């Protein structure tokens, strides 16, 4: 089955939703695809036990009521081509969607840096732990440590506490005076100041270590404790779960496959102009795929992209000052919570870097020609296709194993059933 729309949007997070509504308002038909069961993206996930919040209900109602928007939930985009077209797969089968324009809003994923013990069951990304908890995973009464850097750590801890977890400690790598400098700037973004205050009050009584990090996850079969180092002093805290958060990295794979130009810093982001247009005609990008900046910035970029695609250029340009304002917020977070070098030095030669193919850092360091790492160790050749380990390698060994775009942009984008791939040819327009 092939369906055609004026505009295709990948991702129903803040960016994709804002773009969809802007375009529908301008009279365009929109096909909106997301692999989640509900709209809202990473930040909009609702706790399964809770009744959907008002904002969420409103979003869903608006989406359903809008007959210009066709929403495809639970559909993962497994491939794409520059028609533009998206190939999606779900439990029910696969679909090919085409559009005159395409807006990419697939958001970001968590950066994971390996350290001794990080592959033990019980060690997770903080955002992943938050998402699991919201989807109904029981954490009541379990001991949890959060470690890493930045606001996401606090937000995740807040969610788990609300669900009844015992937060043992939050371990923040940034020094206290750096955090104070960040907080002093918050009044410029009142909504963020209020959010921070809410979280701080909600987490009152939980130890908050600064200038500290987890150096090791301990346990036999699964996580039992973590070793924390704070300014040279080491302590061991027992726990059932460790949620780590070191930052986010944009999901650029679709854009790369479509030939959109990227920047590297060191993680790739999609390059866009002031109207969110990528280097490829008819293809736009909005939200965290263009750089990490938070939900407000993502929403604005979605709106700008929507206006731009609809030809409403003055409306798009009028949003530039607000865009700049929220971009500054993202830049402040990045600056004050920047990762410190000791976190890149925790992994030893025995530490696994690529979980799919069981490749250790030692095996990678043993490859004489860094360009041959992938071929010889099969780093990144497993099901995740390097989404985790490539980013980690870029942090741990800058300049190693740089991959050529042609290599990383090979199909499919995500593991796809062979029959999905086999049937694509039948659906491609005969040209």
């Amino acid at each position, binding site marked *: 089955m092939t369906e055609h729309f004026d505009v295709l949007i990948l991702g129903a997070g803040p960016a994709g939703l804002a773009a969809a509504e802007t375009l529908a308002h301008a009279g365009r038909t929109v096909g909106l695809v997301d692999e989640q069961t509900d709209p809202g993206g990473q930040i909009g996930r609702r706790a399964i036990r809770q009744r959907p919040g008002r904002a969420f209900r409103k979003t869903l109602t608006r989406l359903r009521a809008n007959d210009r928007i066709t929403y495809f939930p639970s559909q993962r985009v497994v491939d794409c081509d520059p028609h533009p077209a998206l190939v999606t797969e779900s439990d029910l089968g696969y679909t090919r969607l085409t559009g005159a324009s395409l807006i990419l809003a697939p958001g970001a994923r968590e950066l994971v840096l390996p350290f001794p013990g990080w592959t033990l069951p019980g060690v997770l990304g903080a955002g992943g732990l938050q998402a699991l908890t919201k989807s109904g995973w029981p954490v009541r009464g379990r001991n949890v440590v959060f470690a890493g850097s930045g606001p996401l750590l606090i937000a995740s801890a807040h969610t788990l506490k609300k669900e009844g977890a015992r937060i043992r400690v939050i371990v923040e790598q940034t020094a206290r005076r750096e955090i104070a400098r960040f907080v002093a700037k918050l009044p410029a973004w009142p909504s963020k100041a209020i959010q921070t205050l809410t979280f701080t009050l909600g987490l009152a009584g939980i130890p908050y270590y600064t200038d500290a990090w987890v150096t090791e996850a301990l346990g036999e079969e699964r996580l039992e404790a973590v070793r924390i180092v704070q300014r040279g002093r080491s302590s061991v805290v027992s726990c059932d779960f460790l949620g780590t958060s070191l930052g986010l990295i944009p999901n650029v794979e679709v854009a790369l496959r479509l030939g959109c130009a990227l920047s590297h810093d060191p993680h790739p982001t999609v390059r866009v102009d002031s109207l969110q247009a990528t280097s490829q005609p008819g293809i736009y990008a909005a939200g965290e795929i263009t750089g990490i900046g938070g939900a407000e910035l993502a929403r604005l970029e979605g709106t700008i992209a929507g206006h731009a695609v609809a030809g409403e250029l003055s409306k798009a340009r009028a949003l530039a000052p607000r865009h700049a304002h929220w971009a500054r917020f993202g830049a402040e977070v990045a600056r004050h919570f920047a990762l410190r070098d000791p976190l890149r030095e925790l992994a030893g030669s025995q530490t696994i870097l690529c979980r799919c193919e069981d490749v250790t850092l030692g095996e990678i360091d043993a490859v004489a020609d860094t360009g041959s790492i992938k071929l010889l160790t099969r780093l990144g050749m497993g099901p995740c296709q390097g989404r985790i380990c490539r980013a980690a390698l870029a942090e741990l060994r800058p300049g190693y194993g740089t991959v050529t775009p042609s290599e990383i942009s090979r199909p499919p984008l995500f593991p796809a*059933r062979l029959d999905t791939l086999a049937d694509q*040819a039948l659906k491609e327009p005969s040209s």
Partner: protein
Amino acid sequence: MSHDLIVIGGGIVGAAIASTASEAGLRTTLIESALPATGATGSGMGHLVILDDALLALSVRSLELWRTLPDRPGTEYRNTGTIWIAETEDDLPGLEEQSLHLATHQVASHLLDHRDLHALEPDLAGDLPGGLLVPGDATVYAPKAVAHLLGRARRAGAHLLLGQKVVALTGGGVRLADGEKLTGVVVVATGPSGSELLPELPVMPRKGHLVVTERAPSTITHQLVEAGYLHGVRETRHATVAMNVQPRPGGQLLVGSSRESGIQDRAVSVSVVSRMLMRVFRFLPALRERKAIRIWTGFRPATPDGLPFIGQVPGRTDVWAAFGHEGLGITTALGTAELLVDLLLNRPVRLDPKPFNPARAIEA
């Protein structure tokens, strides 16, 4: 600087020659313009297979050498065997002939009826009437095999020059892109780009697609190839596809294969992949549900008569060729290296080198 032997190309063929030559005492330098195993070798399947064709003798000798290669585990060598699978009763006489012919080269094979076939490989479609098991065939992971051979070459004193492109043969040596000149006997082992340095020896890239699946429990234990595979190899005008599936150690499957001549574009072709997979589903219907994690393409070095050039190039001073192995370069690399070095050193040869003599292209 002068060398006994300059090998151009760090694919499986160049690596095998460098290893064999340096172990025979030749002061050898291998020059590779990119990194080892990033050409045809890095994109192939690594099936060590005895095809019933003009390369039979070379393949048989090569498999002997693979079996006796020291420290073989470093190449991820696995003795999977091959099962050639008949699609219909009409394919069975061909497999019987193949079996008899293999026997004349002391290669063991066993005809399988419907029951034997499904006992060995229960995932095969129920209507397939039979097959031919060649138990001696094997698989390797080619990039590791190259690393292994280059390691041996190094230990025997060979030098490796990586990231250096040979831009010209100087008659008595080579010139590199940066202007440096090296002198010595030259072996051109540059695979699909062989004709760049030796235009008198025609070689054409022949494109192929491969799919690798996720790890999952699988009952497939042999490399499975359809009996009609060789028709596709011989057909050069049209794109051809044939079922060719290899089980990997961790539970992944390598799924092929396709052949297209006269195409330079690396891009994955949706329609070729589709035809290829349909062919695979004909034999292994359960694979419809398997997930692919990656699809890629590679180029086989194909000569007009389907045989590689192995030997001295007439009309040139001390230039030898070793390229054009099409879809059998991994299999035949060790035999090629042995033959070339024996010829070079004027030692008795184990195989008739005539079919591979580069002179045939120049006289024609």
